[in-house]
C-alpha cells in the first residue's frame, strides 16, 4: 500500500512551503517540494520604470536579504550602463552586506536551527536554560542591524545608495561605534562556532555540485567568478548559458537547474570552494571537533554559517578600521545608456542573480532575478527524498519523520518569501 506524507506548513524557515511525498512498500516514489506563497511578479513590475526605481522596488522582495537585492541590482544596472564605482563605494557595499549577513546567520542559527538540535520547540522555550546563547544571538543581530542602518539609512531596504555610489555616509563617530559593536561580537561569534561544532548532525552525504563565487584571498561577497567544487569556472555575465529556470505545477517558486541538474548554494558551498581562506584558529577548532571540509552533508551548512559568522564579524571590523576618519563624499554622475547588465553577488543563502536591460533613456525593458532558494529548491527536494528513504530504512517512526525532514530543509536556511514560498507535508501511502 502506498502512503503520502504531507507537511502543510514547515515552520522556522523564512516564508511558506509544502512537501508532498508518496511511499509505496517502504520506498519513496514521489517527492514534491514547493512554495505555497503567492506569486510576486517583481520582474514584471519594474519593466517600464526608471532604473533607480528598479532598485527601490526589487529590494522589497525580502526584508532579510534586502541589502543583497540592493547590491545585486546596483551591480547589474551599473554593468548595463557601463558605470564604474570607486573603491570606497565597493567597500561600503561590502560592509552593508556584512551587516546583513551577520544579522541573517545569527537569526537563523539561534532562532530557527538550534532549537531542533537542543530538543526544543523554539528559541523562546530554550531561553531560560540557554540565556547566554540567546543573548549572544541578540547582540549579533542588533550589531548587524546597526551596520545596515548606519550605511543604508534604515534597518532594511537601504536607501543610502544608488547606481554609481552612496548618498548617505556614516560619521566617524558611528564608524567607531560599529567597530566597538563588532569587537563585542567577536567572542559570541567564536562561541557560536564552538557550539555548532558540538551538535550531532545526521549523517547524509549527497554528491552534487557546490557553487559559489570565488573571491581572492577571502570569503566571497560581491565579486568573483562563479565556480564549482568540480573545478568548473565561468564569468558572471555567462551564467545564462548554463542555468535554466522552470516551473512545476506544485510550486509558485521557480526551480533552477544547471545543465539539467540540481546544485547547492549557500554557506557550505562557499566554505567548500574557499577553504584556503580559512584562518588558522578556525581550522584548529574544526580539527578539534573532528568536522572536516569539504563536506557534502547539507546539515553541515549550519557549521559553515557559524564559521562565516566569525569571518564576517572580523572582516567587518577590519574594513571599518580602514575608514575611522570617515568616508569621502563622492559625486555621482550617471548618464543613462542602453544595454544589458548582469549583477551576481553572494547573499546569506547563496548566489543571487539580477539581470536588467535598459533603454537609452534609462528605463527598464527586461528584468530577470534568480534567488538562491529557487536555485536550491531542486537540491532540497532531492535531498528530502534521499533522507526520507534513509529514515524509512532505519525504521524511524512516522511521527518523527516530519521534524527530521524540517531539520534538513532548515539546514539550507531557505527563504521561501523570496522565492515566493514553508512546510506542508502530505503523507500518501
Amino acid at each position, binding site marked *: 500500500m502506498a502512503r503520502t506524507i504531507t507537511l502543510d506548513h514547515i515552520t522556522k524557515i523564512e516564508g511558506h512551503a509544502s512537501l508532498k511525498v508518496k511511499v509505496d512498500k517502504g520506498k519513496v516514489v514521489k517527492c514534491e517540494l514547493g512554495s505555497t506563497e503567492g506569486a510576486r511578479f517583481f520582474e514584471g513590475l519594474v519593466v517600464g520604470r526608471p532604473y533607480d526605481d528598479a532598485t527601490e522596488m526589487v529590494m522589497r522582495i525580502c526584508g532579510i536579504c534586502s541589502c543583497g537585492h540592493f547590491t545585486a541590482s546596483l551591480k547589474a544596472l551599473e554593468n548595463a550602463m557601463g558605470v564604474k564605482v570607486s573603491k570606497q563605494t565597493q567597500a561600503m557595499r561590502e560592509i552593508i552586506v556584512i551587516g546583513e549577513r551577520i544579522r541573517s546567520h545569527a537569526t537563523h542559527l539561534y532562532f*530557527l536551527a538550534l532549537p531542533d538540535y537542543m530538543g526544543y520547540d523554539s528559541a523562546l522555550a530554550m531561553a531560560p536554560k540557554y540565556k547566554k546563547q540567546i543573548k549572544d544571538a541578540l547582540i549579533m543581530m542588533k550589531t548587524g542591524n546597526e551596520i545596515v542602518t548606519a550605511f543604508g539609512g534604515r534597518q532594511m531596504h537601504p536607501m543610502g545608495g544608488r547606481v554609481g555610489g552612496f548618498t548617505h555616509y556614516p560619521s566617524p563617530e558611528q564608524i567607531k561605534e560599529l567597530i566597538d559593536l563588532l569587537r563585542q561580537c567577536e567572542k559570541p561569534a567564536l562561541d557560536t562556532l564552538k557550539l555548532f561544532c558540538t551538535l550531532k548532525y545526521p549523517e547524509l552525504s549527497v554528491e552534487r555540485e557546490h557553487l559559489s563565487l570565488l573571491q581572492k584571498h577571502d570569503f566571497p561577497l560581491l565579486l568573483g567568478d562563479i565556480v564549482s567544487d568540480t573545478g568548473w569556472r565561468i564569468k558572471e555575465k555567462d551564467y545564462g548559458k548554463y542555468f535554466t529556470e522552470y516551473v512545476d505545477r506544485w510550486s509558485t517558486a521557480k526551480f533552477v537547474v544547471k545543465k539539467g541538474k540540481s546544485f547547492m548554494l549557500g554557506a557550505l558551498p562557499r566554505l567548500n570552494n574557499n577553504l584556503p581562506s580559512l584562518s588558522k584558529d578556525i581550522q584548529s577548532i574544526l580539527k578539534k571537533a573532528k568536522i572536516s571540509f569539504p563536506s557534502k552533508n547539507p546539515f553541515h551548512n549550519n557549521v559553515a554559517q557559524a564559521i562565516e559568522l566569525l569571518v564576517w564579524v572580523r572582516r567587518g571590523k577590519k574594513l571599518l578600521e580602514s575608514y575611522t576618519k570617515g568616508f569621502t563624499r563622492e559625486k555621482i554622475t550617471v548618464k543613462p545608456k542602453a544595454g544589458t547588465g548582469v549583477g551576481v553577488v553572494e547573499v546569506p543563502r547563496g548566489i543571487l542573480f539580477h539581470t536588467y536591460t535598459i533603454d537609452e533613456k534609462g528605463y527598464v525593458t527586461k528584468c530577470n532575478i534568480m534567488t538562491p532558494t529557487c536555485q536550491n529548491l531542486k537540491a532540497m527536494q532531492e535531498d528530502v527524498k534521499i533522507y526520507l528513504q534513509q529514515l524509512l530504512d532505519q525504521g524511524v517512526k512516522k511521527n518523527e519523520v516530519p521534524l527530521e525532514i524540517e531539520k534538513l530543509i532548515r539546514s539550507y536556511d531557505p527563504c521561501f518569501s523570496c522565492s515566493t514560498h514553508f512546510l506542508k507535508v502530505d503523507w500518501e501511502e
Partner: protein
Amino acid sequence: MEILLFGNPAIPSDNLALEVGKALEKEGHTTRHVNNPLELLDIKLDERVIIDVAVGIKEVTLLTNVDRLTLGRLCSLHDLDMAYFMKLMQRLGEIHDVRIIAIPAEMSVQEALPKVKELLHNI
C-alpha cells in the same frame, strides 16, 4: 518616564500608537518610536511604558503581565514582533515589571488619547 511607541507609520491599522504618541509629545511627554524590538536590548524596560495597538480588546488596557500577550505562529524571523521579544526578555530575566498600554486597533486617536493619559497618570 520615556514612552516607547510601536507601530508602522505607513499602515493605518498599525499606526495608532504613533499618532497618540505625537499628541503626548505636544503635552511634554518624551516618546520614542521603536522600529525593531532589537532596539530595546540596551533599554531598561522596567523603567519605560510601552504603547502599542492590540487586537482582541475593546478598551484601552494596561497590561502588566507579558503572559497575556498572545503569539502568532512564529514561522520565520520576519515574525519577531514586540510580543515575542517581550516574552523572550522575560524568560531571559531581563524584565520583571512591564507596563504596556494596549489600544484597540479600531479606536480613533481622539477616543484613545484621554484614556491613555489617564492610565499614564496613574502609573
